[in-house]
């Protein structure tokens, strides 16, 4: 029943959301989820992953994340988790792990049918704050204010597969995408006060 419920679960409301806490900006995701009323749990082992209904793959260094996933034997568990159709929010380094192909070449899990280029906005002195283009018509943010963006040594999305929906752009370039229950963002919604991206991915936590 691998990818069965994948698209039907998109935006489904979940209570307990894990944050992959191997390295990087996981604490800010945890705070954002707690803000929204979710129970946010740090995930460092396959057992911890099995106990959550959704997952954030945070920013940080994707090479570091890959090494730790490999050394602590988490690759299969992550693959199964995403394949089960539970909601996943992958930001920055998380987007890089989720892509189908990465430039310069490194392992990628292919949870999103996109290609990305690492650090393609430049080194840290080129990191920036900005505003997304007006949200695409027919998309989840249609008619709303543009997303506020923070890019830090961010990846660029260089190719988008046919089954992938572009949720946000800057100067026409895709920066946030969705395929099934997986949402990927090149920027850092967890570091700005706007909670729309987390809410879209995980829904409002069920009451009671």
């Amino acid at each position, binding site marked *: 029943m691998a990818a069965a419920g994948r698209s039907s679960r998109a935006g489904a409301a979940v209570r307990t959301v894990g944050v992959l*806490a*191997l*390295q*990087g*900006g*996981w*604490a*800010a995701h945890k705070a954002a989820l707690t803000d929204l009323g979710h129970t946010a749990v740090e995930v*460092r082992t396959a057992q911890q992953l099995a106990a959550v209904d959704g997952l954030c793959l945070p*920013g*940080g*260094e994707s*090479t*570091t994340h890959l*090494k*730790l996933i490999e*050394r*602590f034997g988490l690759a299969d568990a992550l693959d199964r988790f995403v394949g089960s159709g539970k909601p996943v929010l992958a930001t*920055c*380094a998380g987007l890089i792990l989720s892509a189908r192909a990465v430039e*310069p070449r490194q392992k990628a899990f292919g949870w999103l049918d996109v290609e990305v280029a*690492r*650090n393609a906005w*430049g*080194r*840290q*002195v*080129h*990191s*920036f*704050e*900005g505003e997304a283009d007006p949200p695409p018509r027919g998309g989840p943010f249609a008619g709303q204010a543009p997303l506020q963006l*923070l*890019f*830090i*040594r961010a990846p660029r999305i260089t190719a988008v597969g046919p089954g992938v929906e572009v949720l946000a752009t800057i100067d026409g370039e895709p920066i946030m995408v969705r395929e099934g229950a997986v949402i990927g963002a090149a920027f*850092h919604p967890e*570091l700005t006060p706007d909670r729309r991206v987390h809410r879209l991915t995980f829904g409002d936590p069920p009451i009671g």
Partner: protein
Amino acid sequence: MQKSTFQAKVGLAEMLKGGVIMDVVNPEQARIAQDAGACAVMALERVPAQIRKEGGVARASDPKMITEIQQAVTIPVMAKVRIGHFMEARILEALEVDFIDESEVLTPADDDFHIEKHDFAVPFVCGCTGLGEALRRIGEGAAMMRTKGEAGTGNIVEGVRHLRSVNGHIRKLTRMRPEELMTEAKNLGAPYDLVKWVAENGRLPVPQFAAGGIATPADAALCMALGAEAVFVGSGVFLSEDPEQRARAIVDAVTHWEDAKKLAEISTGLGKPMSGLEINKLAEHERLAHRGW
């Protein structure tokens, strides 16, 4: 679009949390560090223990070696400048290093003034021994703090002292009444607004990392347990018997610092750590943590 805002600078520090930043002196070491899972490297010509041994004036590194290291790895590359040496900092900024460490490990260039760090597009990290010093550096624009510890000794005692001092003082501020904060700011020699912010939020306004004397996975875990959000390892990796293994072990220990069973596995059979120095056998002029104010 606004480049290099303070939020973007602190944002990179946020992304380095839970990681290990390793001192490297050439591209080969940088690759070893990256392969071990380092989240960034610090490019410098001599690690602190070598600087101690060889003496002389320690300056910012040759741009050639920094550029070679930038080409060798994809993770962020940091480099050090002397305290107060804003021209060394301009040069590193022109090289587009990802973080500048205004560091007591190099010989200070200015006894009175640190760099005005808000003026730069590149973020800065600075060392501190206590809360007042941390808030002075943040006031000048530092986007990340680290403890000074006592670099190049392989001895964690000063790093522990500085972490406890900063965090103990933060806890004290959170219990103070509002009218006590101005006097506390005066006593700390720290900007009032930042003292007030810390009292209200119970933490520093920028990420707080540990540095100085970390030589083992247990040292790294100890720093995390005392409230550090990531660690710098200077001489501890490449002056040990088996740098690859030790580098990996310290990375793993920072992720799993709460799991003593895992730490036991991680710490097993790593070969000899760097040899260490006792702090009370150092002469006053050999105490790097006393540089800067």
